[in-house]
């Protein structure tokens, strides 16, 4: 089974965001780049799926500048069999990224595609669905459990619904499955894995190689802003009972939120 995992390299969650001078992005000088945390769960689910089925290969795919190869090497060190880098610089929107990823999924004859439910930098949560539609595959997101049928034609998924509900979804394969935290615990890269990853040959495409040379983004970003600082608040005085009483009064009369 050809298991494809779509990953994105993102700034670590500890990153303190600073806006670039042209306000069209953030300062990237001191950023520590990591695999999007939700995509780590997707890599792990890909590896687990291969282990459960006792056959198949896991191919990890990313789009971005040269630095993003590092994310692929980390995935290989965790156990991925193959890696594909779609080399592209500059601002790439969901449209271009999804088109490129879908082309690679076609080339690799993807039978199941895993990815994270969203990337923690852009928070669009759109790539999984966009890619699925381009491939004419079914899709499901916020998945916390995935079981593949013995004949590998179906999957049973558990989806986190609203208000704590869980949906059980049945889908035919191939499909795009976007996973959430909680589905598994990603493994650490092993030392032999890290050695192997250093030497791993990475397949590289440009957008032109994928027939997308004349495509441009359909959205343009500008005017990045930091959120307004909140004005310093009030610390309430007195004993706990007084504070609780005063808080309720303030929420009722001053803030008018209860």
């Amino acid at each position, binding site marked *: 089974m050809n298991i494809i995992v779509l990953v994105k390299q993102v*700034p670590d*969650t500890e990153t303190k*965001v600073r806006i670039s001078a042209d306000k069209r992005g*953030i300062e990237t000088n001191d950023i520590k780049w990591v695999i999007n945390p939700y995509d780590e769960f997707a890599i792990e689910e890909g590896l687990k799926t291969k282990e459960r089925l006792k056959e198949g290969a896991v191919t990890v795919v990313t789009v971005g500048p040269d630095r993003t190869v590092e994310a692929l090497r980390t995935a290989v060190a965790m156990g991925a069999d193959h890696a594909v880098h779609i080399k592209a610089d500059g601002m790439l929107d*969901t*449209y271009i990224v999804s088109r490129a990823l879908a082309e690679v999924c076609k080339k690799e004859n993807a039978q199941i595609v895993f990815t994270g439910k969203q990337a*923690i930098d852009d*928070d669009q*949560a*759109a790539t999984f*669905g*966009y890619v699925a*539609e*381009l491939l004419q595959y*079914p899709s*499901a*997101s*916020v998945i916390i459990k995935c079981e593949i049928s013995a004949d590998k034609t179906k999957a049973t998924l558990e989806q*986190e*619904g*609203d*208000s*704590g*509900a*869980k*949906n*059980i*979804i*049945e*889908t*035919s394969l191939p*499909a795009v499955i976007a996973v*959430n*935290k*909680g589905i598994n615990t990603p493994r650490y890269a092993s030392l032999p894995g890290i050695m192997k990853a250093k030497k791993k040959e990475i397949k590289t495409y440009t957008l032109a190689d994928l027939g997308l040379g004349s495509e*441009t*983004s*359909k*959205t*343009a*970003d500008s*005017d*990045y802003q*930091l*959120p307004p600082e*909140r004005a310093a*608040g*009030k*610390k309430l005085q007195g004993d*706990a*009972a007084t*504070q*609780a*009483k005063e*808080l*309720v009064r303030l*929420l009722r009369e001053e*803030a008018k*939120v*209860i």
Partner: protein
Amino acid sequence: MGNVFIIAEQKDGNVKRVSLEILSELSRQGIAATAVVPGFGDLSKVTDSLVDHGASKVVVLEHEALNQYNTEAYTNALYQYLSSQNPSVVLTGATSHGKDFLPRLAAKFKTGIAADCTSFQFSGDKVSVRRPIYAGKCSKMVEFSGAPAVFSVRPNVLATQTGSKSGSVEKVAADPGSVKAKVVSTVASQVKKVELTEADIIISGGRSLKSADNFKILSDCAATVGAAVGASRAAVDAGYAPHDMQVGQTGKTVSPKLYIACGISGAIQHLAGMRTSKVIVAINKDPEAPIFQKADYGIVGDLFEVVPLLTEELKKLKSQS
């Protein structure tokens, strides 16, 4: 502005509030919009409400297969209808369903998408949106080339108002197409929960809660005002709360009217997920906790002492009103 379509969402014949929030904002900007609502059966309450909030026209996409939400059925039915209407803008609420079908719909139009926007502005023939990124550590403006512009709007951000109430209602037979993935069953939560991302009030707990059982202190308090209960990543990672309660950069981004953080120090990832809350209350033993810098009201104290007293005060308030 050309043809603006808002995809309204309903469940069991009740409209989602975010659909009304979007219509209200369109009215304020003087934009005539058609509300499209997939569904089946008696949706008169939904259509009345959409008209009341300013829809110039309501189109019910009717099919039995649209009675319950389904990713492919919704996408197919919406595309089949919208592609015949020459849309310039298609927008919906950034609910769990909205986030699920909208990328597929955008892909069908081979157009751009902007998700979870907190504002949008029509100007001449163009629409621009603002959306928080990095879980709210910053935001950016997005403009679209090509049509339609497709975007979703975060719930709880825009105010509702009733409008001209002169819209018409039309029913259109929908085509849900073929479906490869479907929900076969739903297991509701054992405890009745308010959805975090749509809650007006959220009471959240951190690792200082010390156990899963102690979250009951928060849910008791939440119950008095119909609030949702959230948790910090530290509390989730410690196993005190399930991940679907996590607020922050690797959890949910929320913007309730009132956010009460109990025993949460205020790590950068957590602040990112709740900083757009209208009013923030912090209850923490440590007077130096960073959360106090973001809080409108702070109580330096032991949450195990303060929260039950707060619950009592809220009960008193409710019994008076």
